[in-house]
């Protein structure tokens, strides 16, 4: 090229040498070892180099002095001329023109790479075009061949993919059709063999239980199956751990560094492929493929295909496993339905029976259990029960909340009444929708009857405890009340026994006795011996002191251990009061007898004594003494008679009474005062009565005797009082009317307050009366359920007698 350029330089300067130069160029071109030819401005070839001639061969002579058009297609010829014109016009070369020349009639072509360079004269005018050619025919042909080959590869890949898709499609169909697993393995094998050249295919299943692999399917692609056998291959475990497929070529190995030592995993073939199969987190197994010859080797395309297949296989295996589990569960369910003694049933959303256990059918005495399918509780039980059950089931369906352990009474078609304990739960499908309910019931009739029996006997026991007319209570070892009966609760001021539980004696109205009671309890529990029928005091809920007859025994549990104490007591206060009353009455009677015997004996002694003296005096003729003796005898006899009358009178009180009626005390007092007006006037006693006395319920005649005696008594003991006054009045308390009579007489010493009411007790021998009046008054008041007492500040301080009577009942 440099040469050409220098030639061109020279051309510009040596115009006279143009022809020479051209001739020289022509020579150079002709002898040039590369294909060169020179065209004139009309595209006619003027010269061809030797190499160009060789190139065109026998055609060379045909084209010399002519254009190359005959070797070109019409389009190429036009293009070539266009290029030539462009070079002439622009005076610039055009490089890299690729042109195909028809070589001969057989269609053989020549492909040349051309460079067209302008040749200028000294005037700068393009006179010729030099064309340099490089023969690229072979290269071009090779490229074309290559292109053709590429097309074929693409086509093959497409076909491969098509087959692969077909395989996947077939395997998917088989999967959907639930093909048996062994057939499926077979199908995998035949499918793969259509596109895979491998020597051997093995499907190894992983057994989780003993962490081993079982070769479930193993066959060479020549069609020979090895059958099932256990395999132990380090590569399988390695893949399982890696969870990734592995493809190894002839010279590839897996290097493992273990304990700082490099080892290689053993490989059973030249080419080896292993793909793990998984379902979720579960290892299902591994597919391996092996190849030992060049024509059966496999590549990454194959790996991709096997991965696709392995995924399908994993689905098939996992589906099979699930189906097996389901079948097992179904077996179990069927067995349960067949053999379970409790009644199991499944109902749909309308509470219609879908399934139920044999026990349920038996209960209904159905020979054919299917008869009940589609029926509801309404077809079996009474309306009330069926409605109740239906409501329960619908609620479960709506809320999803199970009903656990409901006891209900069922009346079965055969008329039997049975108690059952039922639990019902929502029945969800896999999507979580409530499909209905399922329930389980078992017969608890025996238990319910036993409980009822227990309840009855408990109620009976409680009734006995509550109706028994004594207080019953029991406490634990720490003195806490564990229970009591109604009477006990009432006596302690509680409404019911439950309120007593947990309390101690310190919480009770009798807290002041608590220590003593608890010490008794302790004694009973520690000595394990009963303390029977002892009397003790108690303060009851009303604050009243009562007498109790108590027994305490140790309380034992079924193991015979002492866990507390049991006590009973009876309120014996009335007995105690009666006893005291009786004792007092006895003492009174004793005093009475004593008094009577003494007081009656006394005049008797007098009479006898003076009769004796009388005899002596008569004998001695003492007339004066005789007279005195007789008078004394007479007086003593009178006294005796008087005493006897009084006694008789006293004994009549209480035995011979007028009926008690409502009477005006005011009138009784007025009448009495009237009858005593004589003596009152004589003694100049002033009688004061501040209030109108109320009505009382009494024997009016006896009541008159009371007032008469009391007024007479006051008059009698006025002493030297210059202005004797007697005052009569009354006061009212809750339960009683209290009447009083007060005088301003001689008064009475405190020490005689009790004795003055005794029979024949006279304070002063010289005073009037027999000592009978106040005894009579006391007796009458007592008959009227009242009491009498006396008050006096002492000598000459006056005396007040006060007596009570019950308030008359309102009518």
């Amino acid at each position: 090229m440099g040469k050409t350029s220098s030639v061109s330089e020279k051309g510009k300067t040596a115009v006279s040498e143009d022809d020479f130069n051209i001739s020289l160029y022509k020579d150079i071109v002709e002898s040039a070892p590369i294909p060169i030819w020179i065209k004139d401005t009309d595209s006619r070839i003027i010269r061809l180099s030797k190499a160009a001639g060789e190139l065109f061969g026998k055609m060379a002579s045909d084209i010399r002095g002519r254009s190359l058009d005959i070797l070109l297609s019409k389009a190429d010829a036009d293009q070539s001329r266009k290029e030539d014109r462009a070079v002439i016009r622009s005076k610039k070369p055009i490089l890299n023109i690729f042109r195909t020349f028809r070589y001969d009639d057989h269609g053989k072509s020549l492909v040349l790479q051309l460079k067209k360079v302008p040749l200028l004269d000294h005037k700068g005018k393009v006179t010729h075009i030099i064309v340099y050619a490089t023969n690229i025919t072979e290269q071009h042909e090779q490229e074309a061949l290559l292109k053709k080959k590429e097309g074929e590869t693409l086509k093959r890949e497409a076909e491969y993919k098509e087959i692969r898709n077909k395989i996947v499609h077939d395997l998917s169909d088989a999967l959907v059709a639930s093909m048996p697993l062994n057939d499926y393995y077979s199908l995998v094998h035949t499918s793969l063999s259509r596109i895979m050249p491998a020597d051997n295919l093995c499907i190894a299943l992983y057994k989780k239980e003993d962490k081993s692999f079982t070769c479930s399917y193993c066959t060479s692609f020549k069609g020979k199956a090895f059958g099932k056998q256990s395999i132990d291959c380090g590569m399988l475990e390695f893949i399982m751990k890696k969870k990734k497929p592995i493809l190894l070529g002839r010279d590839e190995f897996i290097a493992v560094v273990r304990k700082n030592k490099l080892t290689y995993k053993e490989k059973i073939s030249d080419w080896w492929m292993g793909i793990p199969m998984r379902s979720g987190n579960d290892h299902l197994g591994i597919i391996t493929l092996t190849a030992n010859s060049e024509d059966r080797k496999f590549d990454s395309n194959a790996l991709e295909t096997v991965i696709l297949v392995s995924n399908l296989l994993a689905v098939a295996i996992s589906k099979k496993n699930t189906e097996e589990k389901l079948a097992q569960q179904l077996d179990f369910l069927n067995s349960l339905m067949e053999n379970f003694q409790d009644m199991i049933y499944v109902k749909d959303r309308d509470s219609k029976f879908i399934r139920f256990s044999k026990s349920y059918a038996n209960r209904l005495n159905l020979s054919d259990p299917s008869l009940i399918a589609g029926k509801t509780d309404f077809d079996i039980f009474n309306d009330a029960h069926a409605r109740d059950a239906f409501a329960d089931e619908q609620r479960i369906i709506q809320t999803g909340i199970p009903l656990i352990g409901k006891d209900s009474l069922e009346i079965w078609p055969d008329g039997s009444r049975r108690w059952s304990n039922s639990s019902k739960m929502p029945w969800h499908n896999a999507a979580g929708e409530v499909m209905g309910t399922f329930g389980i019931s078992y017969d608890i009739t025996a238990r319910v009857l036993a409980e009822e029996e227990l309840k009855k006997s408990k109620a009976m026991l409680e009734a006995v405890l509550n109706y028994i007319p004594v207080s019953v209570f029991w406490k634990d070892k720490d003195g806490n009340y564990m229970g009591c009966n109604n009477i006990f609760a009432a006596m302690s001021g509680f409404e019911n026994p439950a309120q007593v539980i947990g309390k101690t004696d310190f919480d009770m109205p009798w807290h002041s006795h608590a220590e003593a009671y608890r010490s008794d309890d302790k004694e009973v529990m520690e000595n394990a011996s009963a303390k029977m029928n002892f009397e003790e005091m108690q303060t009851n809920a009303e604050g009243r002191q009562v007498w109790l007859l108590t027994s305490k025994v140790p309380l034992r549990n079924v193991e015979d251990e002492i866990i507390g104490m049991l006590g009973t007591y009876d309120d014996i206060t009335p007995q105690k009061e009666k006893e005291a009353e009786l004792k007092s009455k006895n003492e009174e009677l004793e005093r009475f007898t004593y008094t009577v015997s003494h007081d009656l004996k006394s005049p008797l002694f007098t009479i006898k004594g003076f009769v004796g003296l009388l005899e002596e005096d008569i004998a001695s003729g003492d007339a004066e003494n005789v007279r005195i003796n007789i008078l004394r005898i007479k007086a003593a006899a009178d006294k005796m008679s008087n005493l006897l009358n009084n006694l008789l009178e006293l004994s009549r009180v209480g035995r011979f009474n007028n009926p008690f009626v409502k009477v005006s005390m005011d009138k009784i007092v007025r009448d009495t005062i009237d009858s005593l007006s004589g003596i009152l006037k004589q003694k100049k006693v002033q009688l004061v009565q501040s209030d109108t006395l109320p009505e009382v319920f009494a024997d009016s005649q006896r009541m008159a005797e009371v007032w008469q005696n009391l007024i007479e008594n006051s008059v009698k003991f006025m002493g030297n009082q210059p202005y004797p006054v007697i005052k009569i009045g009354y006061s009212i308390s809750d339960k009683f009317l209290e009447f009083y009579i007060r005088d301003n007489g001689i008064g009475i010493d405190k020490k005689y307050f009790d004795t003055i009411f005794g029979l024949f007790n006279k304070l002063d021998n010289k005073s009037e009366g027999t000592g009978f009046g106040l005894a009579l008054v006391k007796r009458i008041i007592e008959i009227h359920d009242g009491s009498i007492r006396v008050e006096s500040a002492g000598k000459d301080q006056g005396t007040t007698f006060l007596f009570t009577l019950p308030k008359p009942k309102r009518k």
Partner: protein
Amino acid sequence: MKTIQGEPISILLVEDNVDHAHLVMRKLKSFQVANRIVHLEDGEAALLYLAKAKKDKNLPHIILLDLRIPKVDGLEVLRLVKTNPDYMDIPIVVLTTSDAETDIARAYHLHANSYLVKPVNFINFTELMEILGFYWICWNKNPYH
């Protein structure tokens, strides 16, 4: 009069029933103590008398005491006398119509020296009075005052 030992005897008779007192005194007449018998009708009077007699150095040698007497009861008089160092030496003979066991027991408990029940039968009474006279007035050694 003098006792058999030649001692002059004075008697305090406490008896509310004047008839009974009359009979007792009449029967003791034969022992010639009439002017030496002081008869009082209630317990209070008896105690007052003893207090005065102590002052006058004129205490009775013997007290005949009825139990059922007004104001201060016979047993109370007995108690007061027998617990008072001034009088406790004086023999007390209870003379009463009561033969109640309680009365007898109480009287001895309070250190009565003797307990006699007045017999209703006049002959027995006469006999008792004679024995009483001989025993307590003639034979019994009384403490010196």
